[in-house]
């Protein structure tokens, strides 16, 4: 069983809220982070197995700080309060904004006094003029809502691509070009990502999300060329994955300008001489990157303009490519360009529509909040005409 290590990243999940935290580099150092509205010394999980933890209050001068203790017995608020009265319907309830007698400041004070989440919710219920006449379903809905904020239990999870994709997208979609998790799933399929393959990624703004997803999928088997033009390649999500050196082995960073030089040289030496095929682009760039050598290619950027066509040169015939953009128009340009140049078949411009559902007895319905867009993808298969 893995234990949580210093310097690692962990996912903290409290009900439906997901956040990402890096643990302190050094053993024994306190490390206070915000989980929801609570200040929590997250260093308390180091050395323990991943799993469910309980927030335990620890007085620290004026502000209370919580530490985390492993705990498997989660008590849901609705179970705790199931003996309360409830009404038959909500006919008598007139929400004039005065039903809750605790003000925001009162709640803040209770927090300051170090009440636990469920103690605060108990206070909220006791100070509500309408809670006891609400229907059971309304009460449950109310408690679930409060639990999102005040739950005393959190799960400390090893980061995985599913969590990170969701976390980065829900935190601020455009920080990863609005590449939604279900769209990422489509990219992984349509680029035919598999172990022992050679893949190229051009990441024009998704923080290394696609590269991380590929590295995770292939678990050390194969090669991933992280291609870039300017600056340094994107890597935030890759770092957050806590990859082992073995898992990181397939990753080769490669500047396209450097590659261009190398390929030009290679072309010059090509002829009757024995070509220097094993060009070292990166220190340990074992398999050579040449035109027609990649099994699959993913391009993520706002507008691929001419680069998509160039990058597809690196792809082997019958290789799969996927181009992602938050906008449809740039992809329509590339679509026409590829069609007119007969570069590919099975060209498809698509988006996915994604919705989650609440499934509860007598209360089943789609969630009312939905993402309006998850970006567009242009996919195809390279052919030689």
């Amino acid at each position, binding site marked *: 069983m893995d234990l949580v290590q210093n310097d690692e990243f962990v996912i903290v999940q409290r009900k439906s809220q997901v956040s990402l935290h890096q643990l302190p580099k050094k053993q024994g150092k306190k490390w206070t982070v915000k989980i929801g509205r609570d200040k929590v010394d997250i260093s308390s999980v180091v050395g323990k197995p991943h799993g469910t933890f309980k927030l335990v209050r620890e007085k620290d001068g004026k502000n209370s700080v919580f530490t985390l203790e492993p705990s498997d017995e989660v008590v849901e608020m609705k179970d705790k309060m199931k003996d309360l009265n409830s009404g038959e319907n909500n006919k008598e309830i007139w929400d004039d904004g005065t039903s809750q007698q605790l003000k925001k400041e009162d709640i803040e004070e209770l927090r300051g006094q170090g009440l636990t989440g469920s103690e605060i919710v108990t206070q909220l219920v006791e100070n509500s003029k309408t809670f006891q006449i609400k229907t059971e379903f309304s009460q449950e809905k109310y408690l679930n809502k409060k639990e999102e904020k005040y739950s005393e239990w959190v799960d400390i999870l090893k980061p995985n691509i599913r969590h990170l994709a969701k976390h980065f997208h829900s935190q601020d979609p455009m920080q990863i070009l609005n590449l939604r998790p279900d769209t990422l799933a489509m990219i992984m399929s349509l680029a035919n990502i598999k172990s022992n393959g050679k893949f190229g990624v051009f990441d024009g703004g998704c923080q290394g999300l696609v590269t991380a997803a590929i590295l995770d999928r292939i678990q050390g088997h194969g090669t991933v060329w992280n291609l870039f033009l300017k600056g340094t390649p994107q890597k935030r999500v890759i770092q957050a994955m806590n990859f082992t050196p073995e898992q990181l082995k397939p990753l080769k960073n490669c500047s396209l300008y450097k590659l261009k030089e190398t390929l030009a040289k290679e072309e010059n030496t090509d002829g009757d001489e024995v070509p220097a095929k094993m060009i070292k682009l990166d220190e340990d760039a074992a398999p050579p990157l040449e035109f027609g050598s990649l099994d699959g290619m993913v391009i993520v950027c706002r507008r691929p303009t001419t680069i998509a066509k160039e990058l597809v040169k690196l792809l082997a015939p019958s290789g799969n490519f996927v181009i992602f953009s938050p906008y449809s128009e740039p992809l329509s340009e590339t679509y026409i360009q590829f069609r007119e140049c007969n570069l590919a078949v099975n060209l498809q411009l698509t988006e996915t529509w994604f919705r989650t559902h609440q499934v509860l007895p007598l*209360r089943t319905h789609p969630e009312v909040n939905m993402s309006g867009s998850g970006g567009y993808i242009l996919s195809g298969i390279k052919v030689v005409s």
Partner: protein
Amino acid sequence: MSFANTKCVVEEGDTVIIYVNPQAMYALQVKPLIATKKGDMVENIFQTAYGALKVQELVGKKFGHKVQFSRGWGYLLHPTPELWTLNLKHRTQILYTPDISLIVMQLDLKAGSVIVESGTGSGSLSHAILRAIAPTGHLHTFDFHQQRVEIVTQEFSDHGWEPFVTAKQRDACKDGFDLENVADAVFLDLPNPWLAIPHSVKALKKSGGRICTFSPCIEQTQKTCEGLLAEGFKYIETMECLQREYQVKNITLPEIDDYNFSFCNTPETNCEGNQKKDDRKFRAVLPALQMAGHTGYLTFATWPRQSEKCQT
């Protein structure tokens, strides 16, 4: 003031819309005085995001023209049911324009239709119904909450809908509508709509009509469909309708996003796409990142013409 008949110039008593931007619109009634929380009558001054507006000074102003605030300006708009839906005070969850539009069309509403609505809620749908059926139809609207009925009655009156609407407090599921053979259509937005189906049948004209129910949950919809089938309704159809909004943006990408790159030093020219011009500028029709993923399921059905033998 009437929503029904368009006018050019504001008169006292009119409800108007002050439009500042899509996120800042206000519905105001033009009257010189307004009650404070304590009940005192004071000069009616409205605070917008761009400063104060003396509401009475709107009298005589033209709709569709600019109106000045103390620190900026906005537009004075004629009220419509859609603008009212965006600006009314929520006493309940309300229906929005995509569902409302579908309800009005699928219930075959037109000038002259008689329709029963329950519950009235905050009156969002009622305004669109009234626009469709005036000046010759009638809306009978019911809500089990007395306070809501009082407020919406005042609004109907302020908006000039009074001749075309009757609003009553009533628990439709228990007590029915007290209407017989008068309605072309019935709309039910109730927690247990199936309980009101027999009452709806009574209210519908024997020559036939349409019914619609709105329910957030699928279980309610299932019970409703069973109820409609058992009662003899035909062409029972359940649907959902969502609105997707787009932003139109002229985008200029930062230089870092300029991916003009070629492996060749001499750019190829045989295909499109290698032209360099304006590579960082384009127009995008961009879906809003967030949207309403669910409002409710709409179920429609036809009440068939009742043959002679049943009419006795």
